[in-house]
């Protein structure tokens, strides 16, 4: 049995550091505005004429702004496992960047384990796989620093 190669499900949106991954946003070199995914052309701040952006690793931890789950299998282009396994999603506030970033929540953590305000951290996890590759994506995982409802 051969080991599959882990590759990002999308290039350039996050680092592949398995221990301490970060999302890769951008910062406008003129006004400092953060964006995710990266801004590449025009700064979205209407008061800024910026055209140049530095890569900006975003905060690895944040707090849950809101959350839900996907009880039914999402349609393509989502590549669902067979049989389908429902998953939770969270919109997470990053304090330093003052923005909210969505993502799936790691398998095994459901809506009953989440609350608005739950602290979560970024991890890498498999989104789907084919014969040779595991395609990885960012997901949110509770740090345990704040307790969910069940605790």
């Amino acid at each position, binding site marked *: 049995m051969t080991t599959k190669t882990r590759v990002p499900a999308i290039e350039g949106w996050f680092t592949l550091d398995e221990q301490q991954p970060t999302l890769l946003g951008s910062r406008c070199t003129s006004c400092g505005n953060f964006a995710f995914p990266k801004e590449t052309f025009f700064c979205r701040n209407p008061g800024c004429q910026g055209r140049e952006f530095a890569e900006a690793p975003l905060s690895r931890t944040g707090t849950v702004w809101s959350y839900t789950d996907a009880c039914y299998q999402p349609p393509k282009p989502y590549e669902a496992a067979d049989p389908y396994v429902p998953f939770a999603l969270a919109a997470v506030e990053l304090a*330093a960047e003052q923005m909210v970033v*969505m993502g799936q929540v790691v398998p095994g953590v459901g809506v009953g384990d989440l609350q608005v305000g739950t602290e979560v951290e970024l991890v890498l996890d498999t989104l789907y796989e084919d014969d040779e590759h595991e395609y990885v994506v960012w997901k949110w995982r509770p740090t345990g620093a704040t307790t969910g409802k069940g605790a």
Partner: protein
Amino acid sequence: MPDDKRVAVLGAGMHPWGKWGRNFVEYGLAAAGDALAEAGLPWTDIQYVAGADTIRNGYPGFVAGATFAQALGWTGARVSSAYAACASGAQAINNARAQILAGLCDVALVVGADTTPKGFFTPVGGDRKDDPDWLRFHLMGATNPTYFALYARRRMELFGATEADFAAVKVKNARHGLENPYARYRKEVTADEVLSSPMVADPLRLLEICATSDGGAALVLCSMEFARRHAGKADLVTIDAVSTVTPRFPQTIIEMPNFSTDSSATTASVGPTFKQSVALAAYEEAGIGPEDVSLAEVYDLSSALELDWYEDIGLCKQGEAERMLRDGDTTLGGRVPVNASGGLSCFGEAIPAQAIAQVCELVWQLRGQATGRQVEGARVGITANQGLFGHGSSVIVSR
């Protein structure tokens, strides 16, 4: 309101919503035919056709305003085509209004129609790694109900909304739509039925999420001068405002189909939220306020989202929507009925037709013709809606 700031509605028409599986053009033509009949005008009198486009039924040329003009029979009428997702209909209304107010035409036909597939709306096909709408499905499995559910959960946490409140919205709207001949679902539901329907996106259940429907809606709009000449001194229903605003930076509430909000780290977020600004712009244009409104048609993509709209269109303060609902203020017979038509809850969404259908309902309500769902003495109505990618939509209609 001065005549150079408003347009008259001479006719409204709709094809019943459903899952008919026929060509969308057919629904548009049926609606246009009814609107022209109400207006008492032949198609050949129409000088301008404003189409609200669907994207699900073919290439852009096929789904444009000209499709309806050709189907009605080429007359040389001028044409426009608008695509703004759920707000397409408001854009088409605004295109027609602008032509009339600019004096470029006297009378215009607005028409939108759609045929929808079963199940979740999906993005345009292909391998589209630069399209956020494609990517949110691919990378997160985030469907439209995902976003509706984030807002619903937020209401529960911030304002103490309960699953029973969300179910009560559905029960109310189902009752409102019972007698509406254009509604797809005309059946009472109980709170128990709502709360025992399958969970789709926690805390939202199947009966609380709007379906996707086939349907068509049309309006005949004209200048005030043309209306008086044509309709005599009859009490005219007029469109007094059309808001098509976009958000202001930084947009700090997560919106479909995005992965993130704007950042407010370097630019503070001040002033109203996007959804609040949609109605505010309409009120300002019409020179009225929420206290003047007799009824509202708002976009209840989910039952919980209707509660957000109560606050966003100013019917109550933030956090008070549940109280309004529980007090019966937004039920037929209450202070300001919301979704007297039955709303998306009873219709399901036929995207390019929906914002036009909201106005059709207000027109019939203001004329006292909304049999079985009439808001007594209605004088002013407002619609509110939001289209994917930042398209605000709100129309104020008065008599």
